[in-house]
């Protein structure tokens, strides 16, 4: 077995970095495509096995198995790294997959273990040796190599989805059990409901609705993303509007692509780097003060561009600089105040913390501050608010059982709050939560934090126009 023994300094692997371009078109090629960077010894050495992360880990808290814990996974990666275990060992492969990458462990680790980076490498190492199931190969190829490499394709795919959802085809497919035959029943439920209108990053600029005196408005570039741009047009609309209310100029830079988080998560590091480079080119050109991202998974990923491209001589510095200017929308709004709405929004709201926000970026108080700025809003904390909902990129498609259990747990906790709105801040989580809520028939809406804030701003405007109309009519 060719075990790539990592040295403390080398992150890139000696072997296996075969030409990605040619291999991209066939399934078998995937084996060579994956980046086989082995976990870095310095990363796993930082783990002193104290176990303080165990109970934060969603998979451990369901299975109570050491292999399914962060400490166990690190031990497996270490064993592979030190040559004690072959990378083909079933436990290693299984655990690299079962891990959600939710980073709850990293957030609580006192030793500063960079679990995210470790897992990313471990996953790539696993991908390099794995015999994948046919379904898995189809899905992964579609997702990573075809669909999410071009926003044009995403829109095309979304159009067909839109048709599928609206045309009665969906009904037909369900009735005929086609999906069950394909083993994709669960996956189908997770398809986002495609918005009628897409957001296209065409370079448009939206001026602020208000500016402070003697201060030029902040210029904010919005990363429109992939799924977000076709399925969450409303979130984009709210983002743009809310930022304008808070005195920002918002621009949608041309030429951006999917951020690449999905690819990275799936161990497709080369693709992820390529997308990052394209985005850096596009976003830099916008000359914005701030890059804002309204999906936590994406904002986290863009902030990691520096790490992702650390060995790229052309992009390393630029990536780090861009990452430093990037903010999650909840973070930016909290920085800006936000401007308190006048109108009261008497909703009972609970908050589900996206992993990539709470753990990945340690952004926990900001979204709550944004919600707290809304008059009349009745905020209730749910239990285990920062425990992963099971969405985790493609996790809910590839590990449906575990994902379903996590979702059920999350829905139980939110039901216990008797909230009518579940606030979130990430696309994946929202898709997952919406699917769950719909399936259970819960009378609950799942909205992005910025959508809730913006709902109040819209009420303000209606109020103003209503008042204005009363004024004129009297």
């Amino acid at each position, binding site marked *: 077995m060719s075990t790539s023994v990592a040295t403390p300094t080398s992150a890139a692997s000696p072997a296996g970095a075969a030409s990605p371009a040619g291999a991209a078109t066939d399934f078998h090629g995937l084996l060579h495509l994956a980046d086989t960077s082995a976990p870095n010894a310095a990363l796993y050495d*930082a783990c*002193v096995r104290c*176990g303080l992360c165990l*109970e934060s880990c969603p998979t451990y808290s369901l299975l*109570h198995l050491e*292999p399914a814990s962060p400490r166990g996974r690190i031990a*497996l990666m270490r064993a592979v790294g030190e040559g*004690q275990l072959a990378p083909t060992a079933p436990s290693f492969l299984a655990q690299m997959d079962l891990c959600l990458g939710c980073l709850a462990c990293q957030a609580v680790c*006192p*030793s500063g273990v960079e679990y995210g980076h470790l897992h990313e490498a471990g996953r790539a190492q696993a991908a390099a040796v794995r015999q994948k199931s046919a379904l898995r190969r189809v899905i992964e190829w579609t997702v990573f190599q075809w669909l999410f490499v071009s926003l044009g394709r995403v829109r095309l795919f979304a159009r067909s989805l839109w048709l599928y959802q609206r045309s009665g085809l969906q009904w037909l497919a369900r009735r005929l059990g086609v999906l069950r035959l394909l083993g994709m029943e669960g996956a189908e439920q997770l398809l986002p409901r495609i918005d009628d209108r897409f957001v296209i990053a065409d370079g448009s600029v939206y001026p602020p609705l208000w500016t402070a005196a003697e201060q030029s408005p902040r210029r904010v570039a919005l990363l429109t993303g992939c799924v977000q741009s076709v399925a969450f047009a409303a979130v984009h609309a709210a983002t743009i509007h809310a930022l304008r209310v808070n005195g920002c100029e918002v621009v949608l830079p041309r030429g951006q692509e999917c951020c690449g988080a999905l690819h990275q998560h799936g161990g497709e590091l080369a693709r992820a780097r390529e997308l990052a480079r394209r985005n850096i080119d596009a976003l830099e050109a916008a000359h914005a003060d701030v890059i804002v991202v309204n999906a936590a998974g994406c904002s986290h990923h863009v902030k990691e561009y520096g790490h992702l491209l650390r060995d790229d001589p052309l992009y390393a510095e630029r990536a780090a600089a861009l990452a430093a200017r990037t903010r999650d929308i909840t973070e930016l709004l909290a920085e800006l105040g936000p401007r308190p709405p006048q109108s009261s929004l008497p909703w009972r709201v609970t908050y589900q913390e996206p992993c990539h926000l709470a753990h990945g970026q340690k952004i926990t108080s900001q979204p709550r501050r944004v919600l707290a700025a809304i008059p009349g809003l009745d905020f209730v904390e749910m239990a285990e608010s920062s425990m992963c909902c099971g969405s985790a990129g493609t996790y809910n498609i590839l590990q449906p059982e575990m994902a379903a259990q996590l979702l059920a747990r999350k829905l139980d906790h939110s039901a216990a709050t008797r909230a009518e709105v579940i606030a979130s801040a990430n696309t994946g989580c929202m898709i997952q939560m919406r699917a769950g809520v719909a399936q259970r028939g819960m009378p609950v809406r799942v909205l992005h934090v910025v959508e809730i804030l913006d709902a109040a701003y819209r009420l303000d405007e209606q109020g103003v126009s209503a008042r204005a109309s009363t004024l004129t009519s009297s």
Partner: protein
Amino acid sequence: MNHAHLVHALQAIVGADAVLATPDAKLVYTYDASFDVHMPDVVALPTTTAQVSQIAQLAAKERIPLVARGAGTGLSGGALPLHGGILLVLTRMRTIRSVDAGNRRAVVEAGVVNQQLVTAANQVGLTYAPDPGSGRTSTIGGNIASNAGGPHCLAHGVTLNHVVGLTVVLSDGAVVQTGSALADAYGYDLTGVLVGAEGTLGIVTEATVQLMPQAEAVRTLLVAFPTIEDASAAVSAVIAAGIVPTAMEMMDGKVCRAVEAAVHAGYPTDVGGVLLIEVESVADGLDAVMARIADICRAHRAGEVRRATTAAERAALWLGRKSALGAMGRIAPSYFLEDGVVPRHRLPEVMAFVEEAATRHQLPIGNFFHAGDGNIHPTILFDRRNQDAVARAQLAATEILEKCVEVGGVVSGEHGIGTEKQNYMALLYTQDDLDAMWEVKLSFDPAAQLNPGKIFPRFYQPGAPANHLPPTPADAAHNGHSPAVILHKMRSDDALATAFARLVGADAVATTDAAAYAVGDRQPRLVVRPGSVEETAAVLRYANEQRLHVTPVGGNTCRHLGGALAGYDLALSLERLHAIEAHYPSDLTLAVQAGATLAAVNAALATTGQMLPLDAPLAGRATLGGIVAAGAPVTGLRRLAYGTARDLLLGVQVVRADGRSFRRGRMVVKNVAGYDLARLQYGALGALGVLTALIFKLQPLPETSAAVIAAFATPQDADGVVQRLLRSRLQPAAVLLLDAALDPTPSAAQSLRRWRLLVRFDGRSAAVERQVNEVAAWMQDANGAAIATIEAHALEACWPMLTDFSQMAACGAQEWLLRVNVRAVDTAAALTELTAACATDGLGVTTLADAASGVIWLRLTGAETRVTQRLAHWRRRWPQTIVAAAPNGCDASLDRWGAAPSALTVMQRLKQRFDPHGILNYGRDLVSASLLHADAQTTTPAHMTGMEVLHVN
């Protein structure tokens, strides 16, 4: 059985998904948070006690080692399967069975995580006190097995003090319950021995734990010091000033910096060390206490003294403290974490030694520890791949632990011995000490299959293997074959006196005043009063050889307690052993010989403003050895505030029946080095050995005390106030429901009502005053009559009258004394029922009840048949009802102890191992009474049945 069959058999028990058998899957169960690595043969994750029992049966049948594991956060390798075998991972047994707010009890499965229990308790306003740094991950089973401590154990005590009962699977698969959900249990304190036994005696599957109210107010101080020695000196100065904070934690500068990088809690990074000090209690007067602590710290060169002002700030500071160990990974990838305990006043010296060792061995050593307890955790940091560094680290670790032992400390305070500290046991214990522990091991686990190879030094060889079954007294008496017994039968009392006079001197031997040493109806043939431990040992060795029945006697205040003696040749009086061996005021610890009386000790301690808060009856006569040996029946009325002798006992010196003696415990407040032989003596009535010296934890004398009393027509009328107290955050020292006849105040005359409720508070003046007023108001609400406050002086004067109510020495010719354990919340209801029954039967009754603990004392007069009929009836209702004293001449076969504990077999094995000839108090304590009873029933003595043949290799 080959591996595949074993796996198959386990799968049949727990299911396929709960067995891990491949090397890659087992790999992650080879480690815990310590340094060592050991591979199990197979891993099983049971979900029920029944499954654990089946696995134990399988392991026993196949002679495979069985090792329990919780979350694997142990720091000594306790959960590592040294000799392979089945690793039983209990993380899937995580149901909280019940949380009973009124009785302050919870029943939890072994795999419940400490934090999970705390959260559940918090929901009803209570908390579970032991708070190890690993609390967010470690399991209650693991906490119990290592007697875990934590920052707040300084005031609240360690796991031992909060675990009252266990469900245990023994190595043969038998499922037994130890202890009780009620305040006390009778028989030997197996719970106490299982706590800290590191899974070598039994697998704990369920625990009943004691909860306590969340504090009304908390103050947290962060104090910076230029050096760690200054901080250490401040620790003992605070204690010496009579203040016992709830927590007093130390971190050195290096650790502060690592922690700050990890959690940004606001720790200073440019200091020699910090103390994190917390005080919890009722709010009144708390700020003044904090101000005094701050002053003492400043007098020890403290720099910044910062008070946490918000709950968030406090939480951040604690998160920082609890992240300290993990944060060491920022400095080096591996560590040896030491766990020594030293007398607090030796801390500065020991810390200087640690620093010096770090320099000499050129290794960073991080220090973060429970300074208030003197429990140090020097964490020696190195890289495991550097062999030279590993060797130096080992050397440094050894030197530091040797130093701890040299200054009077021990080698483990809370992490256990496991695989890492085994050989240090020899620093601490003699062969005889270890042999005594080995007797315990084999009593529980005769084939030594549970977590084998642990705790004892690797080179340990049991000293005197008894490889044949010795004849028993009953046995010998039947057939008269034993020459020793013939010798004894032939000897006259005079010959006996002469023989013992040779051992202890003629002055110390008497046949004349035997009446004063009567136990039950029997008088000894001879009274022997040894003047030293050596003489005690000589007396016992000879008595054992001669098969003489010996009863150790202190003040003989419990002469009526227990079953009828099988024989009474020798009263072994400890009255000449009454010296105070050592008292460290700044450590609040005392070593004293067993014959010292409670009153004498407290008189001596009072001059330093300290006390041994035991409140046993007849303090002027009761000896400390006797109080410990008697156990539950002499617990004091203020146990709510101070605990019982079980809680306060730190160490013992015991002479065994054969004259060998052992010590366990030193003048330090935490100790998990080896089995807790001290707890084993609690309530054993001297049946396992004669106590010759004891070490206790002390308390500062309270600033003041006061009580409030009110009259009620029925216990139920007072119950509203009792229930309110049980659910409040007030901190009463005693809650007593008593007969008006016992009312110590003039109000006795002011109300014709039959009952009194008396609530006592000890503590700071402001706090006592406020609480007394509050309870007085509640009494008013509940229509209490003749409400009166009893001030400190009057309370001191009348208190002995109340504590002595339950004394057994002077039971009149016709008096019975019964002790009934009920659930605390049921005390009033039970009192109503008990007294009504007495009225029906025409029995005279006076009662006093500790309503906070559910302990009811009844003094009865009346016809024997009436009493025994009632007793049988009551025991069906309240199985833990004992006859503490019965009139002279009553039926000798009366069962004094009630229901036999379910772990009786283990207790019997203990008795047989420690006293194979049954010479010590035979027939009196619950266990030997059961053996005697069995002897009488069958021709084969019970000794011969339950006894396993020793396998020592």
